[in-house]
């Protein structure tokens, strides 16, 4: 049950040494968005459901954690747990509604539902409206690990990320995951085999939403900020882009995509090209869809299969 592949070991090793070579906050951002994109990819890549509303879960995780940690003085681990559960509950609600429709309608329903959450956070008194919640304390993990230390924070994020990675890996390779793939490949056939397809989609949606919430909660502690932009539809689009660019339906693709997008954003926002950020994101979308549908990891795997097997 606990098979560790070579690529997982490399990933863990890279994760352990990364903060000594790269700016830790940057790597933490990549890990948070990587987890977010992997959660999203569980739906798109393995069930074939394109959710255009995942920002709602990222935002919910962030706001709930931020509020609890800042206003009630909850410890960071409980704050993250509550944020994750809140996103999961919202996912249960939204998922129940969204799985009633398929394909393009599914995308539109999730987008509209996420907008509902966005307007709630815009108007709710505790979120700070357009300014967001600022100055959220990182606190002390389990009461003795001081998270204001950037390396402590980093390794906490790494553990959370690896947990998410493990859970998704485990889900995909379980019998449950096989049924998800069967639904993706041929839904009528899965129905005729007696599977209650909508329930499977629903559970996958809840897992995906919870992990997106976990990413949002973690991100809030890292940046000590819960902002409205996390719940905006732009963020839903960004996670689609990360997954598409990295390679949908591959395990590591979303992480690679997230790293690429975060790198591009960091690079652009520093220089004069900052204004071009949306244009470049849009261009990447168009190029990916027209010529690069397997994404970076997908193309790499194809290349390896062609030449080395």
């Amino acid at each position, binding site marked *: 049950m606990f098979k560790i592949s070579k690529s997982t070991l490399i990933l863990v090793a890279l994760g352990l040494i990364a903060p000594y070579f790269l700016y830790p906050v940057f790597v933490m951002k990549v890990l948070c968005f990587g987890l977010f994109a992997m959660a999203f990819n569980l739906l798109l890549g393995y069930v074939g459901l394109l959710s255009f509303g995942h920002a709602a879960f990222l935002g919910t995780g962030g706001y709930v954690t931020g509020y609890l940690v800042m206003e009630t003085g909850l410890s960071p681990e409980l704050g993250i747990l509550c944020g994750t559960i809140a996103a999961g509950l919202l996912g249960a609600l939204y998922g129940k509604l969204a799985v009633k429709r398929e394909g393009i309608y599914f995308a*539109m329903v999730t987008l509209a539902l996420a907008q509902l959450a966005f307007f709630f956070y815009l108007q709710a008194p505790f979120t700070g409206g357009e300014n967001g919640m600022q100055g959220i304390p990182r606190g002390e993990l389990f009461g003795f690990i001081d998270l204001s230390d950037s390396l402590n924070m980093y390794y906490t994020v790494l553990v959370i990320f690896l947990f998410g990675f493990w859970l998704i890996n485990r889900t995909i390779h379980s019998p449950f995951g096989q049924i998800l793939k069967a639904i993706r490949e041929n839904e009528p056939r899965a129905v005729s085999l007696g599977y209650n397809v909508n329930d499977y989609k629903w559970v996958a949606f809840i897992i995906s939403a919870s992990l997106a919430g976990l990413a949002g909660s973690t991100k809030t502690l890292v940046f000590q900020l819960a902002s409205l932009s996390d719940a905006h539809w732009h963020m839903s689009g960004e996670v689609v882009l990360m997954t598409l660019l990295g390679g949908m339906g591959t395990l590591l693709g979303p992480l690679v995509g997230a790293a690429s997008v975060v790198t591009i954003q960091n690079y652009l926002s520093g220089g004069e090209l900052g204004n071009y*950020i949306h244009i470049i994101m849009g261009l990447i*979308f168009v190029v990916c869809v027209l010529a690069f549908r397997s994404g970076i990891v997908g193309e790499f795997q194809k290349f390896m299969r062609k030449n080395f097997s």
Partner: protein
Amino acid sequence: MASLFDINVFGLFGQLLIGLINGSFYALLSLGLAIIFGLLKIINFAQGALYMLGAFMAWMVLQYFGINYWAALFIVPLAVGLIGVIMERFLLRRISNEDHLYSLLLTFGIALILQGVFTHIFGSSGLSYKIPAELKGGFKLPFMYLPTYRAWIIVVSLLVCGLTWYMIEKTKLGAYLRAGTENPKLMQAFGINVPLIVTLTFGFGVGLAGLGGVLAAPIYSVSPYMGADLLIVVFAIVVIGGMGSIGGAILTGLAMGILEGLTKYFYPEASTTIIFVVMVIVLLLKPSGLFGKEA
């Protein structure tokens, strides 16, 4: 007591009018989406950005070439339609055999590019476009004041929606279109140029968004993101109505605009979310949408 009642009536009709105007734009956009969906089976995520493009084009042709509102009302939808034709012919057609989700992502990318370009050139604060002199002023009705331009928007959009409905449901061209929706292969076997019809349909659907943009320019601030937020509401409307019928798209659009106006009057806090709430209720009771066919 009487005066209080008067104010209420004024406020109520004022909000109803705003609702009807919003509904006109919802109807124009969801009609365009429904027409495109019928033949191409895709949802055009760039519809909102093209609506924005229409508004900016109206502003630009006036500013740079001195072309007035009346000419823009014809030129701009044609130009936006032409851009749609190019989009379909050179981008969307290349992936027409792939999963439709890819087309959706492609149009989303195009929307980001358009919004990014206009934000870069004009900033995000918004420009203003003057109401043409002929449509200034208004009528004093017994229960409210009706600005001429607002009445004009409602009349034009109802007229365009009605004509489109007539064209699709009652003419030979419309019959081709509906037949293409049902069975494109059979149509092609009868010697009808289906790819051309698909391209022109996309151009027409997009042109409706462009027309919406020109109509909106004088009353809303012309800004790069004016279409994006509108489009999400239109998506909810499309889910509510279902895309099975052209008439359904128009009716749902208008009805939701009016409902939004009423909500703004009776319970303003919910006015931004009421349409999404209706969507949730429709999903619970009739998932295929009010006018949708069972999938």
